[in-house]
């Protein structure tokens, strides 16, 4: 049992990391583009919001028949988890970018910075704490939701939970639930700490 807990925990972590890598590499550039396009922003944020409201099991159901992203197994799980992880990432990145003080952006432009310099040297650094919040929320949510992946053969700690439910065995359920919960809490704490540090290193909070 112990070695299985370990194996499934590692599998769970893999699911989460792959999901976050994909969601971040799609969500961050998307948010940067959307920050400058109000009409597209409403459309895309609307879509991502709707995706969020689809119950996870129903989402798997929708994805199963699709080619490439669907089917039984990890790929479908990652696709669904990515769709869920996109919302906090896109929304918080947008909040961070749009929240950059108008006077700061105005003077950056007036001092002769190029659009690219403004993005990389001013907007993104100032949005970083908010971006990190989005990544933290996405991570914690994904760790929890990833337990459902077992329903479609995606593996991870959900395997114990579904097995425990099938066997009416609370200990088997807990063997999956406890490590998943611990992982979520640990991720929340660790990323929360990174967030605070990033605020401090940007001169935006006390503690120098």
């Amino acid at each position, binding site marked *: 049992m112990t070695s299985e807990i370990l194996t499934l925990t590692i599998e769970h972590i893999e699911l989460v990391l792959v999901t976050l890598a994909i969601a971040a590499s799609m969500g961050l550039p998307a948010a940067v583009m959307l920050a400058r396009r109000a009409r597209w922003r409403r459309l895309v944020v609307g879509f991502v919001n709707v995706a969020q409201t689809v119950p996870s099991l129903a989402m798997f159901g929708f994805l199963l028949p699709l080619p490439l992203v669907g089917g039984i197994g990890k790929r479908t799980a990652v696709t669904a988890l990515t769709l869920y992880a996109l919302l906090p990432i896109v929304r918080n990145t947008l909040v961070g970018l749009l929240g950059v003080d108008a006077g700061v952006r105005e003077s950056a432009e*007036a*001092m002769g910075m190029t659009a690219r310099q403004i993005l990389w040297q001013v907007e993104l650094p100032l949005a970083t704490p908010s971006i990190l919040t989005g990544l933290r929320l996405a991570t914690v949510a994904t760790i929890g939701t990833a337990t459902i992946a077992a329903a479609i053969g995606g593996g991870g700690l959900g395997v114990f939970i579904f097995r425990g439910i099938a066997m009416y065995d609370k200990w088997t359920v807990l063997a999956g639930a406890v490590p998943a919960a611990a992982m979520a809490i640990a991720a929340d704490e660790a990323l929360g700490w990174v967030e605070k540090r990033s605020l401090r290193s940007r001169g935006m909070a006390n503690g120098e």
Partner: protein
Amino acid sequence: MNPILEIRGLSCRLGGREVLRHIDLTVEEGETVALLGRSGSGKTTLLKCVNATVPASAGEILFQGKPIGEWDRITMRRRMGYVIQEGGLFPHWTVAANVGLVPRLEGRPEAAVTARVDELLTSVGLAPAQFAGRFPRQLSGGQKQRVGIARALAGDPPLLLLDEPFAALDPITRFDLQQQFLDLRRNWKKTALFVTHDVREALLVASRIVLLRAGRVELAASPEEFRMAENEEARAFLASAGMGDL
């Protein structure tokens, strides 16, 4: 006579509203021109047309004899120092990094940037050893504006654009900074376009006052002429400062 800025028949339309109507204004080298007007009179928009952050809808602006449309925007803006209310400092950069912005963008060597930053901080009355490493939120309002002015001067621009730089300061700090600005003007011989809604400030810092009303130039006069002007809007401004009865 050597005009640094020539504005001819400038109109600007923003959101369907005519913000500037047919502005003619020539700024000679070494002048400090105050753009005085009520809120909404178009003075800030005029400043933004000059550095091409807001597009003009008609007319033309020549900077150093060349239409601003022919300038590379980035190059041109680096030759126009810019100061706004509250400084517009980058909150995630230290004072030294903020002040060194333009020289660093221009690719000057780091040692030269540091020397320049120290020189400028000293000239605006901030000891480099004490202030260079601070972040903007560790500064008072007056100190932020001093840093903002130092930043605007860093690239040695021939023209300074100031948008109500001292409006958010308490009266005593504001007076200190106005004096500082006068000192700097004497020492650095900069040309400046200075937006303000404070007639006392305009009379104090400007060599010429351009009064704007509803997007038009209502009056252009020296401070002495302005005090004596019969113009209704000018009288209203003077009265608001307790200088109405002569």
